[in-house]
């Protein structure tokens, strides 16, 4: 298994001092969960995990380390590398202090979808096995297989993985071939179609209804790898853009501001939506902004270190609606 080949590499990198610690995945509380694992000592490698539930984007922990001199290793998937690109471009981390170890990934499983399947079919699942086409649940009554279309995160069907020169080491170079988009020519903005067809009034009602569920736990903000302001605008002591309550109008301000603040930085990793306990469709907001930026400026976050965010530079050819 892949985790068995991951372990000796991390062990070696720790031993020869290339890194001080490694951000990786560990065994979670349930069979469908993993837990971010910070490995400082080789003994901690016994908890190492790599499977299709390794959806968390570990690069968010690089935000915290931006002021330390530690050399950090990170287990990354193709999509996670994009966040690293933005963190480097935003001067949040020092490329020299980073070791990126990329594992081949052909899609991650949405635990929410798995839970629903399990619940509806009243299965008592004790574990799972990965198959080429998805997963097999192991139950007392036998094995039940599910297709990846049923359980993968939707972003995984649209994976546009391309090898990145930032990566220090690929775990399995031959397998890189398999890191191809799951669907040929996917519609990247499929989720937006319904909302874009709404008239402004309907759209406003739609979002107000969604935002009204927000409990202001700030998980969407905290988990985001590119939400890296040392003091968030909503945490400033002497201003009160929003109160601590959950007034609907303030929820609107919070979510729209959050989305706008990460525009041109958001790489679409989907962590904000994944962690939301109230299932707000936050990626619909982010995707819309990604789409607008793409169409107006032909810019995509996380692609390379050279291109500059259109919000950070002025060009004569910039879109100008006042012309």
């Amino acid at each position: 298994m892949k985790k068995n080949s991951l372990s000796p590499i991390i062990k070696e990198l720790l031993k020869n001092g290339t890194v001080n610690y490694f951000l990786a995945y560990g065994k979670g509380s349930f069979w469908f969960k993993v837990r971010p694992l910070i490995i400082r000592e080789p003994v901690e490698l016994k908890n190492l995990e790599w499977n299709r539930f390794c959806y968390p984007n570990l690069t968010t922990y690089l935000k915290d380390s931006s002021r330390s001199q530690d050399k950090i290793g990170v287990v990354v998937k193709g999509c996670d590398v994009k966040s690293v690109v933005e963190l480097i471009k935003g001067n949040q981390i020092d490329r020299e202090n980073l070791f990126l170890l990329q594992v081949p990934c052909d899609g991650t499983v949405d635990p929410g979808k798995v839970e629903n399947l399990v619940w509806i079919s009243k299965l008592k699942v004790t574990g799972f096995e990965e198959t080429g086409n998805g997963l097999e649940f192991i139950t007392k009554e036998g094995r039940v297989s599910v297709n990846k279309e049923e359980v993968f995160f939707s972003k995984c069907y649209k994976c546009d993985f391309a090898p990145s020169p930032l990566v220090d080491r690929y775990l399995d170079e031959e397998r890189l071939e398999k890191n191809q988009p799951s669907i040929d020519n996917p519609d990247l903005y499929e989720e937006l179609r319904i909302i874009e067809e709404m008239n402004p009034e309907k759209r406003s009602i739609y979002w107000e209804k969604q935002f009204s569920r927000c409990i202001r736990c700030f998980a969407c903000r905290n988990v985001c790898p590119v939400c890296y302001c040392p003091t968030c605008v909503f945490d400033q002591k002497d201003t009160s853009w929003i109160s601590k309550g959950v007034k609907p109008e303030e929820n609107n301000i919070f979510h729209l501001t959050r989305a706008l603040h990460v525009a041109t930085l958001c790489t679409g990793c989907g962590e904000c939506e994944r962690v939301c306990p109230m299932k707000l469709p936050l990626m619909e907001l982010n995707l819309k902004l990604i789409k607008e930026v793409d169409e107006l400026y032909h810019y995509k976050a996380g692609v390379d270190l050279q291109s500059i965010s259109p919000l950070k530079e002025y060009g004569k050819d910039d879109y100008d609606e006042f012309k």
Partner: protein
Amino acid sequence: MTTMNSNNLSINIPPLILKKEYFQGFLEAIKDKYELYIPSEEDGVTLIREYSSGDKLSENYFNVSLPIRNLFFPQEEILFKFSLKENYNLEEKEMLSRERVIFGVRPCDILSLSLLDLVFESEKKDSYYLNKRDKSIIIGLGCVAPQESCFCTSFGVEPGKVIGADISLTDLGENYLVEILSLKGESLVNYCSSIFSKAEERDFLRGKNIQSKTRELMPSRLESEAKPLNLEKYFESPEWQKLAETCLGCGICTYLCPTCHCFDISDKRWLEEGQRFRCWDSCMFSDFTLMTSGHNPRINKKERVRQRFMHKLSYFYNRFSEIACVGCGRCLKYCPVDIDITRVIGVFKDEGK
């Protein structure tokens, strides 16, 4: 380990049957007299929401995402209004006068109310919370399929069996077995008695059977009954740092917890009037203990994570002789980085109190 309603004396009604075909009629009948809340699903999220005619009970729900405390201690609640003119004319928020029925509360969440009662009934009584408690009739619904994250049995809860509510419902498939647990429950059943039929001995036995089957389905997250932990002596343990280092510092664990009760009080003002409100707050937020002077006794994540667990497992016990956890599993299920309270209990479990 529970301090439940003390009015469950002299209930004379034997167990009843509510046929599912009459269920919607049952809800409609309640709605005519009471405010009614039921678990319903919208946009994929099941919450306890106010019932309006035709709403359906959420079919696929293990438990509601937000704990039941929201109905007694809302996330945001106006305490009083005032005018900004000379005498301020403080205007107390009106208390509930009409009774309300909350349908479909799970056994773990019912237990959580008895823990919140300890806080809000102690010393100076919290009129806002107690008024809502007084005016609520709770219909508990036993679980039939516990989740991977459930561990209520470690806190003395029988997941299939409702105690501490006013009425207990057990899902028998095509029917509900209805047991009346309090005088309030009796009054509700009397109000719409024609909807029920008498339960036969075999219905009753079937209910017991389902309840014990549910228990068998419980995952064994904690090996046994959770005991109060003498965590104070582990205050300086390096385990806290290990637990905290992946914490994102969000409020999910505390806001979804049925026993968390921390809040903040603030004012909001307009030109000539204003209101004072309270809202949930979270010890996981860095500004929770930030003082005006700039001093913050819990400046790091380690201290905040430690506070959350110590409060639940140790401090609350020292004050009220109960552990402030009911094993609902929400914190563990929803934590984005899988910080697991049962792991904490496991790490320190060797030392009982």
